[in-house]
């Protein structure tokens, strides 16, 4: 009894209990989870910076990482900012950017990233620990005060190609991660670990084994190397206790000959019970994908009226160039349409399945299809603003000639079966697009010089913040798309913006190559 009391008081003292994350909207001066809230919105309720004053935004401090092309989305809580880079974390004084502590884990000499860059997209925080997913596929928990390691759990062996680049997602008592390795013939999964001990609570394999529903969507033994990576952070609905996660491409990527069938649950969203990891529903965006169109996206959970009735929705502008609105309780398809140039489907049927145009698969001589393999959008975050009731997505406009090549599986090597040659750079472009959330209909667009690699954040002040390959960090009017502010960062921007308070005033942070910039009025 006494022991239980002590335990209780320890829990009560935890700095960032789950309730703070669940109720993130109550403390908009902090940024407590990857997407700002568990619903995946990447929207800041802060409204001090507005279209009227954003022109005065200035750099307040900058932080230099030891390595380039940083994609980190920091966590900000109680005067400290936590940032990550591959196998590294740092706590920064929020007022000045001075390091409070750093932590590093050596990358093994024989480690190789098969099919992706060596990056890290951010940490997670829960209670008194900071969680980092490492390239060599460990989930590590650090003490948030000192950066000292509390535990490190091996998620999977990196040698056959498993790796982690994503920001973990902290839900009640658990930390959830997914893996990269979709070009290495892995068998993907989503894992939840006990936040205190690092013991695995459950694992959901994204490729069903024989005897499990969905295995019949894979010819022969092809499920064993079916990929289905899970490399982007999901979303969580605490009321439904459902975890939503995007699943990557099937393997081999561009040669589907050996894996006839729909290849579940690749290129899908899955809804899992938060306590058990049991599958509640799935929705497959691209059945039998042969273009590497992962559905590794941050799902956005919104409540909106559909034909006069309020619905709990999950929405997604997908890499395959279609926008989708689904019911998040059941997975039922509600609406969808193309939001970028695509030449592979004659729209979606009434169940949301693409009506694939015959002859659009990769072939030996090469086959020109839109979008290119990096899709109409990719891992970086979209945003939903309850203020404007619009979804914002950084959109890529490019096509590619897709090739089909040989693929045989050898652990720890490429298992891709082809590739692409993109159209000339001068013909590629991009846009920040604002879409109506229940239909995907275009509200406005702001054109970009080249297909972007940066996510968007909307703010209650009426802004959309993003960045460009050319180094621009910019603010648009969230209602019209009109550009209002621009800063030239000097490096390619390929990250996600966040917003928070320093001394009670709104600031914005975003990484550009080696530097994290913090802007304020």
């Amino acid at each position: 009894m006494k022991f239980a009391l002590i335990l209780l008081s320890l829990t009560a003292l935890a700095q960032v209990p789950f309730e703070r994350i669940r109720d993130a909207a109550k403390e908009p001066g902090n940024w407590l989870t990857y997407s700002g809230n568990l619903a995946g919105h990447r929207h800041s309720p802060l409204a001090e910076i507005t279209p009227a004053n954003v022109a005065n935004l200035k750099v307040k401090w900058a932080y230099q990482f030891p390595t380039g092309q940083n994609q980190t989305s920091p966590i900000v809580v109680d005067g400290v900012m936590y940032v990550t880079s591959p196998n590294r974390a740092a706590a920064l004084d929020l007022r000045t950017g001075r390091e409070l502590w750093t932590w590093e884990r050596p990358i093994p000499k024989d480690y190789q990233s098969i099919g992706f860059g060596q990056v890290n997209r951010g940490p997670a925080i829960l209670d008194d620990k900071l969680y980092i997913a490492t390239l060599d596929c460990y989930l590590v928990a650090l003490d948030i005060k000192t950066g000292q390691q509390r535990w490190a759990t091996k998620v999977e062996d990196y040698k056959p190609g498993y790796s982690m680049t994503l920001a973990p997602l902290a839900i009640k008592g658990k930390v959830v991660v997914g893996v990269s390795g979709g070009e290495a013939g892995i068998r993907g999964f989503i894992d939840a670990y006990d936040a205190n001990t690092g013991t695995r609570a459950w694992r959901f394999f994204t490729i069903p084994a024989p005897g499990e529903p969905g295995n019949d969507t894979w010819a022969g033994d092809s499920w064993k190397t079916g990929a289905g990576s899970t490399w982007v952070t999901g979303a969580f609905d605490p009321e439904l206790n459902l975890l939503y996660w995007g699943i990557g491409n099937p393997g081999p990527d561009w040669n589907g000959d050996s894996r006839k069938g729909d290849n579940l649950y690749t290129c899908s969203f899955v809804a899992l019970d938060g306590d058990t990891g049991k599958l509640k529903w799935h929705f497959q965006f691209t059945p039998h994908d042969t273009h590497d169109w992962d559905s590794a996206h941050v799902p956005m959970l919104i409540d909106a009226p559909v034909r006069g009735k309020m619905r709990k929705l999950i929405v997604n502008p997908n890499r395959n160039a279609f926008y989708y609105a689904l019911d998040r309780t059941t997975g039922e398809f509600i609406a969808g349409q193309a939001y970028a140039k695509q030449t592979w489907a004659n729209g979606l049927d009434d169940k949301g399945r693409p009506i694939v145009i015959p002859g659009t698969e990769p072939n030996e001589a090469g086959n020109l299809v839109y979008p290119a393999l990096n899709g109409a959008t990719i891992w970086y975050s979209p945003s939903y603003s309850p203020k404007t009731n619009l979804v914002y997505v950084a959109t890529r406009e490019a096509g590619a000639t897709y090739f089909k090549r040989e693929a045989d599986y050898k652990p720890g090597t490429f298992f891709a079966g082809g590739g692409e040659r993109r159209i000339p750079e001068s013909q590629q472009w991009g846009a920040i697009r604002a879409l109506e959330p229940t239909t995907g209909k275009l509200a406005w667009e702001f054109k970009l010089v080249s297909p972007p690699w940066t996510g968007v954040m909307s703010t209650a002040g009426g802004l959309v913040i993003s960045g460009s390959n050319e180094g621009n960090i910019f603010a648009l009017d969230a209602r019209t798309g009109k550009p209002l502010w621009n800063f030239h960062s000097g490096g390619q921007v390929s990250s996600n913006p966040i917003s928070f308070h320093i001394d009670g005033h709104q600031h914005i942070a975003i990484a550009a190559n080696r530097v994290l910039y913090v802007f304020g009025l």
Partner: protein
Amino acid sequence: MKIALFLCVSLSALPQSLDTGKRIFESQCALCHGQDGSGGRGPSLRKAKLKKTPDDAALKKAIADGLPPEMPGAWQLHPREVDATAAYVRSLGKLIVEEIPGIPAAGEEIFNKTGCANCHIVNGKGNARGPELSAIGARRNAKHLRESILTPNSFLPEDFLLVELTDAAGKTVKGVKANEDLFTIQLALPNGRHASFDKATLKNLKRLTGQSTMPAFPNIPAADLDNLIAYLASLKGAE
């Protein structure tokens, strides 16, 4: 002659790996190196020795990883397919080398007389308005060089985009794009200086895609053209 004949026969009945290599080459490499490997935007591969890939290991690495900045890698190929492509490229090296009529020294005179050096640097001499030509013979074949002199508009280097714009004061400026971001554009002007513009303030911004800054020389005498091509083809860069 005997060798060439032998190869003609063998190319029509290639062993399976060479056949795979040929198919990959024609779909992924030929865009720059030509359907028959005689070059184009990229160098001719019909040479016994390839300067940047002296041995098979280097050649395979170049195929898989590329040769920055111009040649992209084909990392997605299976090692067996890389081997087959490399073997096919080596087989091209045994084919007859393109014959170039003309006298390089005479061509150099024409190059200087015609004013080519006003826009092109060769071995440190000339002006830098257009691409440097010190190693153009190693990168482009004679056919490509010939066509780009007769009709420059059909061969535009990606990084030489001609732009015409009208600024806020109504002044029209033409130049080569030096750089561009979302809100600004930088031009290299014909006078050799650079100018920078805010795109939102411009009255007009035209990308003259399909237009080269290089004048066409359709009436150049055939013998002079041969000599000029021979000169350009002899420019192989520093050893």
